[in-house]
């Protein structure tokens, strides 16, 4: 583990109680993040990346969450050991989060200025006027034109991109040390996505906070993240510096993910390398490597035993019995 990591997740297991059984949504995840760095967390739907994010925030109800093990060390404290009251002091103040759908993530019957202001009043005890003044400043800083007027708007009067900017303003209000962005641009158009990603990047640099960017889009990760963790079926299967990992994936799943997405650089009618089958059910995952049933390189051992994690130089890790050679992709 990196010395002085802001966030250090150790063997985290978050299981969900559902009517159909216990879902091993996060099943032994370890990852570190230093202050001021950006981690891209990539995976397909249902791989557990959002559950991981909500576990860090402590946003999953006790009735549903089975804290099956592991630690979440933030600034030296284990978040799993904190009471709900202590977590509340942390949320929005030191760790902030933005969600996927900007259309439904703001309170529809509350003016956006008040929604920003209430964070400041809650954590800093600001007066109403002070909170309002800061809210306008924040709206301006996230690039919203005529912020005084916009502060009095209701969410449905704003476009999707504007709402996502408001969400970012709420998240930044208390200058958090860590911002978790869960698919912040998935619901947005590509030109607006670029605007939001640029905004996130600028704000991270300006404030020196750490950022976890959760997405299914490898391109988004490439543009924003310093390092990337690839998640599959509740586990992190590969982790490394962004350029290293994307140029030379070692875990076959990462490579397959990259080859299955069409790229602008390729000529028309390029045959895509589809991954056959679909991710396993996390109620009863396969015994060995969870990607083995879909993996073209899988051997006997892959199906039998969970893969071990290999650490290489340059903070590169992969969890695979039969990794690709460097330069394969």
């Amino acid at each position, binding site marked *: 583990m990196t010395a002085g990591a802001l966030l250090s997740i150790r063997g985290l297991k978050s299981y969900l109680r559902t009517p159909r059984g216990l879902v091993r949504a996060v099943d032994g995840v370890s990852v570190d993040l230093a202050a001021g760095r950006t981690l891209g967390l990539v995976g397909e739907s249902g791989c557990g990346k959002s559950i991981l994010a909500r576990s860090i925030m402590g946003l999953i109800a006790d009735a549903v969450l089975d804290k099956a093990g592991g630690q979440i060390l933030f600034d030296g404290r284990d978040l799993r050991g904190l009471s709900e009251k202590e977590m509340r002091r942390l949320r929005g103040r030191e760790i902030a989060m933005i969600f996927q759908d900007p259309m439904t993530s703001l309170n529809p019957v509350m003016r956006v200025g008040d929604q920003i202001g209430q964070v400041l009043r809650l954590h800093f005890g600001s007066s109403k006027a002070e909170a309002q003044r800061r809210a306008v400043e924040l709206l301006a800083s996230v690039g919203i034109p005529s912020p005084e007027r916009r502060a009095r708007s209701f969410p449905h009067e704003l476009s999707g991109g504007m709402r996502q900017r408001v969400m970012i303003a*709420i998240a930044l209000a208390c200058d958090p040390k860590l911002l978790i962005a869960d698919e912040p641009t998935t619901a947005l158009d590509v030109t607006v996505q670029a605007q939001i990603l640029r905004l996130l990047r600028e704000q991270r640099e300006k404030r020196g906070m750490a950022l976890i960017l959760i997405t299914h889009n490898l391109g988004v990760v490439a543009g924003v993240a310093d390092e990337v963790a690839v998640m599959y079926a509740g586990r992190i299967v590969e982790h490394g510096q962004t350029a290293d990992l994307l140029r030379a994936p070692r875990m076959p799943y990462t490579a397959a993910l990259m080859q299955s997405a069409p790229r602008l650089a390729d000529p028309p009618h390029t045959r895509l390398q589809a991954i056959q089958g679909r991710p396993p059910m996390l109620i009863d995952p396969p015994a060995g490597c969870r990607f083995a049933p879909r993996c073209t390189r899988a051997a006997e051992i892959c199906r039998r035993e969970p893969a071990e994690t290999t650490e290489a130089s340059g903070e590169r890790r992969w969890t695979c019995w039969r990794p690709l050679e460097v330069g394969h992709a």
Partner: protein
Amino acid sequence: MAAKLLRQLGALAGILLAVSLVAFLLMNLAPGDPALAILGETATVESIAAMRARLGLDLPLSERYLDWLGNVLRGDLGQSFRANEPVLGAILGRFPVTLELLIGAQVVALGLALPVGIYTAYRARGLADRSALAAALALISTPPFLIGIILIYVFALQINLFPATGYVPLSEGVWRNLHTMLLPILTLGLFEFPLYMRLLRSDMIQTLQQNFISLARAIGLPPWRILLGHALRPSSFSLITVVGINMGRLIGGAVIVEVLFGLPGIGQLLVDGIYQREYLVVQGVVLFVGVFFVLINFAVDVLYVMLDPRVRIDHASR
């Protein structure tokens, strides 16, 4: 906005006209001769003809309607034969009793439904939630007269806390009035409570699953502030609508409760009118209640627009 309001007022006028037509036709198309009904089986052919002429029954239907409507607009709903007083006067004289009953019942129902609904939504599937739901289901399955009879049996007959029947007007003191009105109000309130509670609970549960609630939690708000500050208002829109619409259900319930507790409200007037074949009284009450109900619903629509910014903006921008 003004055009919108104008259009709504136009629709309101149309509905009111239609209501009056239904009230009129109900009486005039019904089988049986009203004149005969008034005079009884012993009436002679001449007296029936005289009564028909007096009631205007010998005129064509459309003419009778217009005549009647003109009278109604002037405030003349006809004369009650037995009591020998104007029908409108009889209605207005008794309406305060019914109104007190209705308002009291809504206060009781909402006073119970708000805390119970919010808490059960917050702790959905817990023990309190399940007990509250079971109680609500039992109450929904109990006809209003039965709720009243049980309350009478327990509070009037067994422990003698309140009178079983009778009415003391407000003018003779608030407490003396409440003493007679409490059981009727409670009856109607309990009849209405489970509906509101279940509605608020399910809307609230839906709201609590929304992303903006996750956001409210993610900025560190405590549960009670999330419940009251963020979840309650967006969850209460359908409750507000239903509280309005259910004035109708309550007026129906009020008829039963007034008969059961012997309260001199317009429900009692309606039923007496039916028993005594005072068809003008019946018609007057039906018309009055219909108009009252339509106006309440209109007011709720307007209130709704004022409460929900989404609707409000939509209306303003159009």
